[in-house]
């Protein structure tokens, strides 16, 4: 479904991605782990067409999007749902309007139908009846759930999550993971998720990839990564301060 080939990106001469290769199959949840500041968000932004690669190729559903722009790129984006790191809720709109917004702007559905779908999504993320609130009035965990509801309301084929649980308490982390698994079972989307939640992510991912020093050091089924002999991966998932990983 998604193939990244030898993706390179530098900012002001500082290389962030030094040749990333990644393959995500249809319907699977791929979780990308890696150090903070290691370029995970930068990688996602390339998949979203928000950043341009210096070199390499990105193919989504058979379409090479590396150099794509305008309407052709938007056609691919209409198949996406995106949960940004900070939620990126529109703070000029209520929670309900945030969730209803993609339906209003992108579909020809009637008012009643839009309200029904948006409320159903809010219900699914456990926020039924919170629609009238403003994003500023709700907690961080609720904002992330609203962002998930907004990303999924158009029933996208491919969903990107950028650290959907960072900074939340353990109960909420598992709640949101459970939510993602449930919604995945229901809608069978392909997911690319950036997360630091170790070991919880191994329970929900089909595949895990570790980004380190601008490259994917290893990618594969969750158990394979968990039991990988690679010292970088072992150090990272144990959170060991000693080892081959150097701080950046």
């Amino acid at each position, binding site marked *: 479904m998604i193939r990244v080939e030898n993706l390179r990106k530098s900012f002001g001469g500082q290389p962030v991605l030094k040749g990333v290769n990644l393959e995500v199959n249809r319907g699977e949840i791929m979780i990308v782990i890696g150090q903070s500041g290691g370029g995970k968000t930068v990688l996602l932004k390339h998949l979203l067409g928000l950043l341009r690669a210096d070199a390499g190729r990105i193919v989504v559903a058979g379409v090479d999007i590396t150099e794509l722009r305008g309407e052709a790129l938007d056609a691919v984006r209409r198949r*996406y749902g*995106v949960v940004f790191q*900070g939620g990126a809720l529109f703070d000029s709109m209520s929670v309900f309007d945030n969730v209803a917004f993609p339906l209003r702007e992108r579909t020809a559905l009637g008012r009643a139908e839009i309200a029904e779908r948006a409320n159903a999504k809010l219900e699914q993320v456990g926020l039924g009846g919170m629609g009238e609130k403003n994003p500023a009035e709700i907690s961080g965990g609720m904002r992330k759930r609203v962002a998930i509801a907004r990303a999924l309301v158009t029933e996208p084929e491919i969903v990107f999550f950028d650290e959907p649980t960072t900074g939340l308490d353990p109960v909420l982390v598992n709640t949101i993971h459970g939510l993602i698994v449930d919604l995945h079972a229901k809608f069978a989307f392909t997911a690319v998720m950036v997360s630091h939640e170790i070991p919880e992510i191994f329970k929900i991912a089909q595949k895990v990839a570790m980004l380190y020093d601008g490259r994917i050091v290893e990618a594969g089924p969750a158990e394979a990564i968990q039991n990988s002999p690679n010292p970088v991966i072992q150090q990272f998932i144990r959170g060991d301060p000693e080892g081959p990983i150097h701080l950046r």
Partner: protein
Amino acid sequence: MTTWAARPVDLVALVGRAALSLVASLGRFGTFFASAVAYAVTPPFKMRQLVGRIHFIGYNSLVIIVLTGAFTGMVLGLQVFITLSRFGSEAFLGPAVALSLIRELGPVLAALMVTGRAGSALTAEIGIMRITEQIDALTVMALNPFRYLVVPSIVAGIITFPLMTSIFDVVGIFGGYLVGVKLLGLSQGTYFGEMKSFVDLGDVTTGVWKSLSFGVLVTWVCTYKGYHVGHGAEGVARATTQAVVLCSVLILVWDYFLGSVLK
């Protein structure tokens, strides 16, 4: 300075780099406006956003426009009366106040006030949307942020600035009336009557052209500065300051230019 004197080549390189970066940013600034115009004249039009922006720019600036308009008119009434009375021509107070307001002070001061009240807020709002990835969110929804944020603001500027300016003018003329007629004892007939015979349509058109172009200028600068904001809260603060300073300077420069072209 000594190092520059020692290496004149460095000075040339420095000036060259500064010039290049100036040309590049002017280019970005121009391209920004060109895209805004292109999206403004092709559907779909975002009416809901436009109404929101008119409220944001116009309605929110109403109080400050009325307040500053009234005091500007009153100050004019007083000062011009004092000046004219030295030549014994107090009778021309009406047209003097009206002409200064309609041709010059109305468009310029109204634009400066709206810049301070709404322009800065516009930059801050769009800048915050940028740094909190709300603009990216629009983009990946395959919705064009220009259509949702930039075009409605500029069109709202074109609609509201002339309105704000006319309110400023009317309130100002009334302020001059309060001082000249009610306080200093000029007759009401003289104040308004002379106005009718000395202010013509050309003066009004000049004012309207000025306010229209200020509307474009202010919203263009403010949306541009917000859209291309730097990093973090500091970036938003800097962009907001730059937007207000740049708008204020450009308003005065452009006012002089238009004033000399529109006679």
